[in-house]
């Protein structure tokens, strides 16, 4: 027992100090640009941009390796902010926002395998092993990870319809007097 306690303590202390020293000497100065860019990204770590998470996407943006339009859920609004921070003039007039979607699980196909649940970065899926899962619509950010992982194709991505609370007037279309110059 003494031996066990002693050896564990030694292992702990050694590893701890190694980590501590490593942290001090190998620390990477975090780039303020990267930090700012990361702040502008949604932070939901959905990975739809092709990077593991928003942090990695910010690094790529800072290096100029990724276009400002990379963030699909962020849409035009985020693209504009990123371009502004990067001091770029991006022409986003042709950029269409992706239609927001949410996941729905077909209960007749769900086998309760937990795979989608493990993929979901916002804990929007509830369920237990061998039990049918459901998606909490309010928490779903439409990243499609569950859709891509479901072995029985039980997940579908549905369009979010505008309701009375979300609706707003569209920009007026100008009917001008002069059609030709």
């Amino acid at each position, binding site marked *: 027992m003494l031996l066990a306690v002693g050896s564990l303590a030694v292992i702990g202390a050694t590893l701890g100090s190694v980590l501590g020293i490593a942290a001090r000497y190998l620390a990477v100065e975090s780039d303020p640009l990267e930090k700012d860019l990361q702040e502008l990204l949604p932070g939901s770590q959905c990975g739809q941009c092709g990077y593991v998470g928003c942090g990695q996407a910010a690094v790529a943006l800072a290096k100029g390796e990724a276009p400002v339009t990379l963030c699909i859920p962020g849409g035009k609004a985020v693209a504009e902010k990123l371009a502004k921070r990067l001091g770029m003039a991006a022409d986003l007039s042709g950029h269409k926002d992706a239609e927001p979607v949410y996941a729905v699980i077909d209960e007749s196909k769900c086998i309760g395998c937990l795979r989608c649940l493990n993929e979901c970065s916002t804990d929007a899926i509830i369920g237990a092993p061998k039990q049918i899962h459901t998606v909490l619509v309010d928490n779903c950010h439409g990243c499609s990870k569950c859709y891509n992982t479901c072995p029985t194709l039980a997940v579908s991505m549905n369009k979010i319809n505008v309701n*009375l609370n979300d609706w707003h007037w569209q920009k007026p279309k100008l009917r001008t007097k002069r059609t030709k110059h």
Partner: protein
Amino acid sequence: MKTFHVEGGIHPEYRKERTQENAIVALPMPKILCLPLKQHAGAPAEPVVSSGKRVKKGDLLAKPQGAVSAPIHAPTSGTVVDITDMTAPHPSGLAQKTIVLRPDGKDEWGALPPPIENPFAADPAEIDARVGWAGIVGLGGAAFPSAIKFGLRSKKPDILVLNGAECEPYLTCDDRIMQEHADEVVDGARIMAHALGVSQILIAIETNKPAAIVAMTVAAAGYPAVVVMPIPVQYPMGSEKHLTKAVTGRETPAGKMTADIGVVVHNVATARAVREAVRFGWPLISRVITLSGAGLTRGMNIKVPLGTMVVDLIEFCGGFKDGIAPQRLISGGPMMGHPLPSLDVPVIKGTCGILALTKAEINEQPAGPCIRCGGCVSVCPCGLVPLEMAAFIRHDNLEQAEQIGVRDCVSCGSCSYICPSHIPLVQYFNYAKGKLNAADRDHRKQERLKGLVEGRMARMEKQRKAKAEAAATAAAAKKAQAAATAAAAAAAGTATAAAPPTETPKASA
């Protein structure tokens, strides 16, 4: 009493003569009533009845849901035939859950709460509760639940302003209510003042309603705390902040409410509804609305059960003039009302008028370039610079439009009205405000999702650590056991009497 000058505003053609002299008539009970679950600002109500249920007049059909909401009661006795998605009386034309009630023609009251015998001795909280129960909302059009406004008592207001300005062209329903039911309005206002704990009531009426001013002055005569104040005819005088300025001289800072400067504003029709809820235990199940516009055979002021279809009302007014569909069908006034998606939509609590306007009344023309005449700047009652805001919005620069105050715009439409180039200014601002609010909602959702992601990551990290620790302990235990066995073997080998390791700690303690 002295009134105060209010900057800006316009003097449109009021066209009230069409209905100003027409006494309120009650609509015969329609064959069908459709009651949308959201007739008020806030969350939709939640049905407590299902299809097939027989109800009596005044029975609860849907209960409020969430902090800002209002219940819906049966406007008459009959049978709930369906709860289904129907086109809402909303410019979007989107569908909304609606309770469909088929009246049985008996108009039998159900069980009602007892009248509050002496409201002026009642606990204000009792009046709040009654008004909340009755589902009363601001009947001037905004449809904000009135009981919540009573809660402004906590801000210790000192003046209740009763809004009888009715500054929108065409509308005359408040005018008629004041002419025909002045005593009830004054009584309602006094009950409201008691509930709010204020001592002074100012009833503001534009001078283009002389009959209403006379009737209200007579009704208020016995009460020194109630003062009727004729105010200049100037659109948008009925806007809360501007009305407050006109009768009290107090300016509401941008981004604040009138209650922050001690003033609560209620509409005259709301005061009457409050009286009925308190004195008789009646919920809000009908309202008075104006039907007008040159597109109608005759203009009328009608007392309508909530849920009445617009098509039935038009028929009651003799149909469209010469059977020709009007150029535009509007719910509310011509300045701040909104187009209706069809005739098959119901009257809801916030509907103050239905206008059938002809081409000649609208004067719609294609937009020209801004000539920088400054007209819009001089009429804006909020002191904004519409031409600049519109220019920013046109170039999708909402951020800058926000900086110069587009969110303070009350959408009165004065700028659009005055603009010689017919630029759809207020339409730009409605769009911008909607879009900015949507961005706010997105941002809030995003923040919430971020929180969820962070929570999940923290949990994963903890799990991973716990696993690693468990593995390390298991490994160490194994090692220790191996060492112990080795030691035991060694001890046995040298034949030295050594205490078993397990007992050592005790011995040393």
